């Protein structure tokens, strides 16, 4: 029977390195993707993801399962991401408006291409659509962005997300509504097409 995250973490606490490897394998991709969608820089996202795992590892002896493991892990990740975004924004403000600046934000990298081989045109269209989505998410205020990413892509429960973002469930639901409303407007060309097809 598969062990739960809490069981694995308790085993890490007891000194079992293999259990830490299992947690790493399980959450490496979700964490990197969450952080990439928050900061839009793959190098920074990977660095932050490693920092999350490092902090989990450092805290192993004090670990007490008072909340879900994912709540704890994504809380660390969200805080690191928000700090990174704010640090980056501060650096951007110091740069002259006249200069063309490489912000470090990438075009969508390392896509996991499905098995069927798409045509070049299809791939370009897909990339373009993905870019639009990533940019639209990135334009959201940080807390709305984190709320949408945790709700939509990590499928955390409302109470978990509220704990991560340190707000009430009621405030979280308002946050999500406003975020999806903004995305609905930003992605209107894509949403309209999808809506018409339905």
């Amino acid at each position, binding site marked *: 029977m598969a062990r739960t995250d809490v069981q694995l973490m308790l085993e890490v606490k007891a000194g079992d390195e293999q259990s830490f490897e299992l947690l*790493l394998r399980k959450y*490496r*991709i979700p964490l*990197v*993707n969450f952080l*990439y*969608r928050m900061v839009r820089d*793959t190098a920074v996202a*990977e660095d932050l*993801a*490693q920092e999350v*795992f*490092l902090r989990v*590892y*450092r805290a192993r*002896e004090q670990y007490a399962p008072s909340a879900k493991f994912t709540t704890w892990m994504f809380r660390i990740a969200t805080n690191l991401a928000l700090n990174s975004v704010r640090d980056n924004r501060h650096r951007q403000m110091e740069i002259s408006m006249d200069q063309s600046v490489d912000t470090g934000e990438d075009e*969508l*990298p*390392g*896509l*996991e291409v499905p098995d069927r081989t798409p045509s070049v045109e299809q791939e370009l269209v*897909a990339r373009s*659509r*993905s870019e639009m*989505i*990533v940019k639209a998410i990135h334009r959201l205020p940080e807390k709305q962005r984190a709320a949408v990413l945790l*709700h*939509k*892509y990590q499928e955390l429960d*409302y109470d978990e997300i509220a704990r991560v973002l340190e707000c009430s469930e*009621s405030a979280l*639901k*308002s946050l*999500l*509504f406003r975020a*999806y*409303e903004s*995305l*609905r407007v930003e*992605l209107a060309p*894509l*949403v*309209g097409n*999808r*809506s018409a097809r*339905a």
Partner: protein
Amino acid sequence: MSATGNGGKQCAAMEKKFVEYLDGRATPADRHAVEAHLAACASCNLRAEEFRALSSVLDDLPEIAPSVSFDASLRARIAAEPARRGFWEWLPSPRLAFAATALLVMSVWLSSGPRSVPGPSIAKHAVEAVQGSKLSADLEFGMISDLPELENFDVISKFDALSELPGAARPSAVERTKETR
């Protein structure tokens, strides 16, 4: 969103229930309220459809893969973490540990050691005097006899201070008897 009058207020009231409803997590009462509103409000009904379409669009966002060096890099960072040390390992050497322990023990011993006091009988007598207990003649004698011999007791016991003063008349035997009554 219709923003006029009561319709606007009802639309605003639906906001918090909207996401839960679309997630399929609304309570039966909330689900009923939202469905009743959607049936009556065209703009909110359109919004609900577009929210569903948006969810499908967001599903199109592909995942990125961590770099091939991610795991190795993380393991290197973990390996670079300082090793956990026990309490005694914080001391640089066993000799220093022994010295520190000895110093601690001595400090405790010195701070709780007895003060220097006169002979035990004097101390006992002094305590009894402080407590105001009635001293017996023997006890009084004991107090005096234990004092350091600055004076010769044998001399003192026979000493009549008045008789030693120059020019002082020695009282007669009758007068001395009266004094002792």
